[in-house]
């Protein structure tokens, strides 16, 4: 099997699974229980926050464990909107956000909020000037992703953070789900108030994630109950999930430090070979995240390619898994200004640190073969 769909999800690391199992077996008590077992698990919960904070260079009381990216994005966006609507009802985001941000913002429109969806250029990057111009007196939130999940474009988060700093009344949320472990993002003194991360994109488990919530930022909770996670996310803590997430975080940070050069080489090789293929056009811009390469084979339905490669044990995807069931064109690639021939034929290869050059070579060979076979049916 050659797995090249790592932006949809990754294979859990065995060490991560081991932590999950150990905690589930040995520390199953509810951290809110006052008996000794509860005391132990509470200690472990505090410890996992400390570890996460250390890895992200933030404070331990700024870590909220969640069930993943979608939840993190929803808590951040709706939490700010509902808590601070008295101050204003305007939100700024982009046209290329993940559905959990995009649809989350759309849902707020129905509640009377006004949302500005900023366009992107052909490289899939939002303009800093546009962000600055879009800010109004009643703007309470800017939510912009770090790395786009379909084409891997990197947004100028640092610069937008500087703009956000100049407007102390608005909050800045970053969806860092695809960037984590691949493209560095500093939270310290960054202007970022909220930052979403997910476990299963970094060889952690589904159902794990965290939201960085800067000290002093108030959110309206989406779940009310026993006031766990600073009352932002009530519900008995998924301690095994949290511990396993922190382990995944440590492991991916180590790999990022040691192996980012290798991933970049894979990326360059893959791009170069794809560029040389006659029927292929690249959608991913030159400057982008090292793990995502998006391309179109104009005239070919992407599902056909997915199935052809799938039969041979090679797994890639059309656009993002979260929206690929709706067979329409890619919203993201459309936003980059490409025509329907391209938006409807996009394929995505997403790498992990586990992939090898041999795997990439086999994929390219099989892709080439498939294109040659399918040539006749292509318009």
């Amino acid at each position, binding site marked *: 099997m050659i797995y090249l769909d790592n932006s949809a999800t990754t294979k859990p690391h065995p060490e991560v699974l081991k*932590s999950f199992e*150990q*905690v589930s077996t040995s520390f199953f008590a509810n951290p809110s229980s006052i008996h*000794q077992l509860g005391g132990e698990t509470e*200690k472990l919960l505090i*410890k996992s926050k400390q570890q996460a904070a250390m890895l992200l260079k933030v404070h331990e*009381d700024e870590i909220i464990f969640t069930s993943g990216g979608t939840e993190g994005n929803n808590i951040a966006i709706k939490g700010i909107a509902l808590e601070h609507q008295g101050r204003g009802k305007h939100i700024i985001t982009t046209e290329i956000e993940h559905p959990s941000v995009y649809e989350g913002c759309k849902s707020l429109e129905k509640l009377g909020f006004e949302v500005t969806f900023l366009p992107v250029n052909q490289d899939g990057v939002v303009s800093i000037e546009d962000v600055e111009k879009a800010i109004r007196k009643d703007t309470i939130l800017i939510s912009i992703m770090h790395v786009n999940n379909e084409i891997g474009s990197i947004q100028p988060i640092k610069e937008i953070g500087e703009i956000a700093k100049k407007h102390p009344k608005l909050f800045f949320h970053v969806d860092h789900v695809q960037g984590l472990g691949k493209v560095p993002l500093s939270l310290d003194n960054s202007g970022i108030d909220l930052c979403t991360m997910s476990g299963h994109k970094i060889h952690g488990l589904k159902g794990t994630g965290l939201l960085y919530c800067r000290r002093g930022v108030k959110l309206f909770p989406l779940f009310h109950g026993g006031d766990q996670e600073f009352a932002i996310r009530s519900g008995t803590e998924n301690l095994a999930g949290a*511990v396993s997430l*922190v*382990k995944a975080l440590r492991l991916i940070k180590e790999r990022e430090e040691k192996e980012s050069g290798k991933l970049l080489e894979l990326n360059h090789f893959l791009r170069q070979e794809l560029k040389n293929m006659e029927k292929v056009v690249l959608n991913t811009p030159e400057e982008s995240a090292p793990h995502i390469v998006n391309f179109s084979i104009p005239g070919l339905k992407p599902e056909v390619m997915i199935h052809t490669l799938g039969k041979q044990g090679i797994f890639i995807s059309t656009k993002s898994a979260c929206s690929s069931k709706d067979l329409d064109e890619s919203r993201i690639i459309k936003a980059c200004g490409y025509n329907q021939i391209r938006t409807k034929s996009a394929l995505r290869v997403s790498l992990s640190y586990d992939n090898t050059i041999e795997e990439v070579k086999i994929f390219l060979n099989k892709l080439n073969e498939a294109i040659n076979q399918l040539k006749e049916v292509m318009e």
Partner: protein
Amino acid sequence: MEFDHILIRYGELSLKGKNRKKFVEKLQNNIQQKLVDFPEVKVKRTQGRMFVLLNGHAPQPIMDKVKNVFGIHSLSLAIKVENDLEKIKDAALYALTNSENVNTFKVSVKRINKGFPVRSQELNQILGGHLLSNTESYTVNVHSPDIDVRVEIRGEATYITSSVVRGAGGLPVGTSDKTLLLLSGGIDSPVAGYLAMKRGVQIEAIHFESPPFTSDRAKQKVLDLAEKLTKFGPSIKVHVVPFTKLQQKIFQETPDGYGMTVMRRMMLRISERVCQNEGILSLTTGENLGQVASQTMTSMNTINEVTNYPIIRPLVTMDKDEIIEISKAIDTFDISIRPYEDCCTIFVPKAPKTKPKRDRVNYYESKFNYDDLIQEAIEGIEVIKINDRKVEEDAFEGLF
């Protein structure tokens, strides 16, 4: 180019006459202790100055560790370069552009090595011009600049220092002997410990626990607080006293209203015994005048009767909000407010006496001989040593 050392300034120490050498050595030692996890980083002294040599390590984590060490007035990141004009120019530019929150600057040149061909005044102008022409957003302000880029040309090399970061102040911990801190788990006592440490005092802590009326979490809270305090000094020994039997007896034998006073006196008696055993010369408490019933002047007078050891009360005249401010700054507040009962909050009489008289208390204490129970408590003390380096709980090993 990168910052390769940290310059340490120790203002108050220079006043300490003959003791100076001892103080400076202690300071160097304390800094070294804090950096034990960074073997490549060295602390050096030459010609009345102290440096932390980074030897390639990223500066910020080291700065964060060092700036909490008492006895340091201020610190600056610095670069050492050869006595070469071009290299000095590059380094000055690096020092300016790598300092945060800076809009205005000035340059101060000190030419100790008179052999250097350019005179101070002239070099000031050359460097100022170089910085202005190679940057965009900075302006010169000679009166109150955000950063004073200091250039010191010495015989062996030139040192360029950037912004001045305030140190923790005070005196090096360990230069003023030891005190025993009564650590309950509340907001006040860790702050009292911190302030004692600031004046160079090394601390050990004593904590009274009364299981099952108090829980493991109350004890853990105290250990976590002690760990926070190790940021400012060496490791801390915590003496945990099993207090249940004695405490129960006190409240059985003493009329309601006086139990609290007798309990406090017992705590001081036990604390004094621990001091004697450990060679500690004083006690430190978080007492604060008028905060609660046990902390009135009359109450302090009555409680104090049982020991003639000095009791240091750093918070005695502070307002609660001042105390809370410090506890937040030293990161103990969030631990202190964890809601577990400690031995001072259980068995609290409905109306504790705010003016407990010495003769009354002595009379109540004479009704029962507590000697055996005190002895038993002292013999049952558990000593836990808290290190500032991450205490890895064995049970959690490998999980992260």
